[in-house]
């Protein structure tokens, strides 16, 4: 279980440069594909691979591509979602910074399959320096005839541009991203129509995450069937996991899907255990919006099976006892962590990031933040815990986009699994001790 596909050349010095990337086999998949394959075959291989969207939703990529409308005379677009903003997630930044040409090769291959003559990489504005790395790589690709007219003599034309955002989590939602790319506020659109029918400038558009698009390169290199043999069950292939929090070795790890969670947390190959030899208290396994799980439920399912890093195993038990793989933003908390305070940082985040279109989200996120603040200030009541539960239940499913759910789920899960902690804070406010964390600062 140590297969590396995306980061296999990560250790190579200057792999971000085109010449080094090509010396190590880069763009050979593109060359072969343009020479001997056709768009239909590429789509078929991606379908066979079982690749699922790596941004968080986990929707089958081949299926998403097959929905793309193809009316005559209307341009089609590929848009790469590099707006990575889900707290706990930093894998796309790592991939783009280290191996920008892998993304660009994936963009050209995917665009070839989709018949897109233009693509945009929409990157969050704070990743300004990463945007510069991508722009340099794109310029190198143009100069080498890998972008532009008649790529590698194939007759396929393609232009790829980097577009920077300006600080808005909501632009990671694909229709908000398209609005932003059109020069507007990032307000999500009502669906349908889906972007596959009416996306950028009203034209058929596919929006895919950075890691998803990069994975197209190894899929075509290995073939869809071979790729599907990697991983476990319907969780095929590898996944980049962003590991952070109270662990010895935070960072980005490429795992073969199916690695046991326990191994991921404690093995020297990955997180290297909890800092200071402390005990594990809880994990947010897939970015801030997925349900937090206490140690006993993240290491084993409710049935006592070892929990694995896969879409199915993390989801086992539904939200009652399970969670989601999400974006792979893996946040680890040790025994001294205040779950309520951590939740407060999430609630503040979602309140800040709500676009304000839908009342349940605009108002509800603010109320949740205020109530959690009140509890942390020592003024909470038992009724406040019930009120929090009530508010989150009235946001879920009642908004245009999934930010509503993303804000509601962490609150629900924290109360579900750690109600005792909330109760201890409201019943004995002196329990709200100094809950800051000094570990890093002491080192």
């Amino acid at each position, binding site marked *: 279980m140590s297969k590396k596909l995306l980061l296999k050349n990560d250790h190579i010095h200057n792999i971000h440069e085109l010449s080094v990337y090509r010396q190590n086999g880069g763009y050979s998949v593109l060359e072969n594909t343009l020479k001997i394959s056709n768009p239909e075959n590429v789509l078929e291989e991606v379908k066979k691979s079982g690749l699922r969207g790596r941004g968080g939703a986990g929707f089958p990529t081949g299926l998403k591509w097959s929905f793309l409308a193809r009316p005559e005379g209307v341009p089609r677009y590929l848009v790469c979602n590099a707006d*990575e*903003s*889900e*707290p*706990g*997630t*930093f894998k796309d*930044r790592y991939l783009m910074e280290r191996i920008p040409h892998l993304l660009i090769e994936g963009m050209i291959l995917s665009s070839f399959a989709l018949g897109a003559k*233009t693509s*945009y990489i929409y990157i*969050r*504005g*704070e*990743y*300004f*320096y990463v945007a510069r790395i991508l722009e340099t790589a794109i310029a190198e690709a143009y100069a080498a005839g890998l972008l532009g007219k008649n790529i590698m003599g194939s007759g396929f034309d393609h232009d790829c*541009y980097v*577009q*920077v*955002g*300006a*600080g*808005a*989590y909501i632009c990671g939602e694909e229709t908000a991203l398209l609005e*932003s*790319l*059109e*020069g*507007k*506020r*990032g307000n999500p659109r009502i669906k349908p129509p889906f972007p596959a029918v009416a996306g950028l*400038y009203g034209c058929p558009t596919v929006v895919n995450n950075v890691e998803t698009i990069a994975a197209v390169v190894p899929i075509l290199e290995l073939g869809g069937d071979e790729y599907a043999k990697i991983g476990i069950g319907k969780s095929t292939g590898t996944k980049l996991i*962003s*590991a*952070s*929090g*109270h662990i010895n070795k*935070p*960072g*980005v790890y490429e795992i073969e899907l199916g690695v046991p969670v326990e191994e991921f947390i404690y093995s020297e190959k990955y997180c290297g255990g909890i800092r200071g030899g402390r005990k594990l208290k809880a994990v*947010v396994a897939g970015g*801030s919006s997925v349900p937090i799980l206490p140690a006993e439920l993240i290491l084993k399912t409710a049935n006592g099976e070892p929990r694995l890093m896969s879409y199915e195993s993390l989801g086992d038990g539904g939200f009652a006892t399970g969670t989601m793989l999400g974006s792979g*933003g893996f*946040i680890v*908390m040790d025994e001294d*962590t205040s779950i309520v*305070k*951590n939740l407060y*940082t*999430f609630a*503040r*985040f979602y309140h*800040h990031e709500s*676009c304000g279109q839908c009342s349940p989200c605009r108002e509800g996120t603010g109320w949740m933040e205020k109530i959690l603040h009140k509890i942390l200030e020592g003024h909470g009541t038992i009724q406040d815990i019930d009120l929090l539960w009530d508010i989150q239940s009235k946001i879920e499913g009642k908004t245009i986009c999934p930010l509503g759910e993303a804000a509601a789920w962490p609150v629900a899960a924290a109360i579900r699994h750690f109600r005792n902690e909330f109760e201890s804070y409201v019943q004995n406010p002196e329990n709200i001790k100094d809950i*800051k*964390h*000094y*570990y*890093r*600062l002491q080192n």
Partner: protein
Amino acid sequence: MTTSEQIVFSKESLDVVQKMMLRYPEGKHKSALIPILHIAQAEFGGWLSAPVMDYVAVILKIQPIEVYEVASFYSMFNLKPVGKCLIEVCRTSSCWLCGAEDIIDHIEKKLSIKVGETSSDGMFTLKAVECLGSCGTAPMMQVGADYHENLTIGKVDELLEKFKSEDKQSRYC
């Protein structure tokens, strides 16, 4: 207060803006609004005044309101003046777990300003911001375009000393 007569992009920036508009299909040049606002903010003092936004509207041949509504939506656009050195400390989950509050407290004391304030000499503005995608290297802060990661109190002190003599305002051009 800057008057609108003085608000003109440098030739260099104008070239960048003209090239940028070619990235989009004909008639879709409004797509360049956010990138151009970044350039404008960098060029005209680190924030977007109404006259600056009006100037951008003229360049893109769109209504001023189309610029205001976008500028006010995105957190990277400053609608009020900021110090020469804009310090943004991340405070969301992983950064909080790794000591972001201590970093913020320390900078507040060191610069004698609170979060959201600018130092009286106009040099520093301190902001607490939401997740900047640097969770594995927490705690962190962004200053200008640069990420400063794995912060400690000592590292922050060194950086603040260094920033005193640098102009960190120009970040997006």
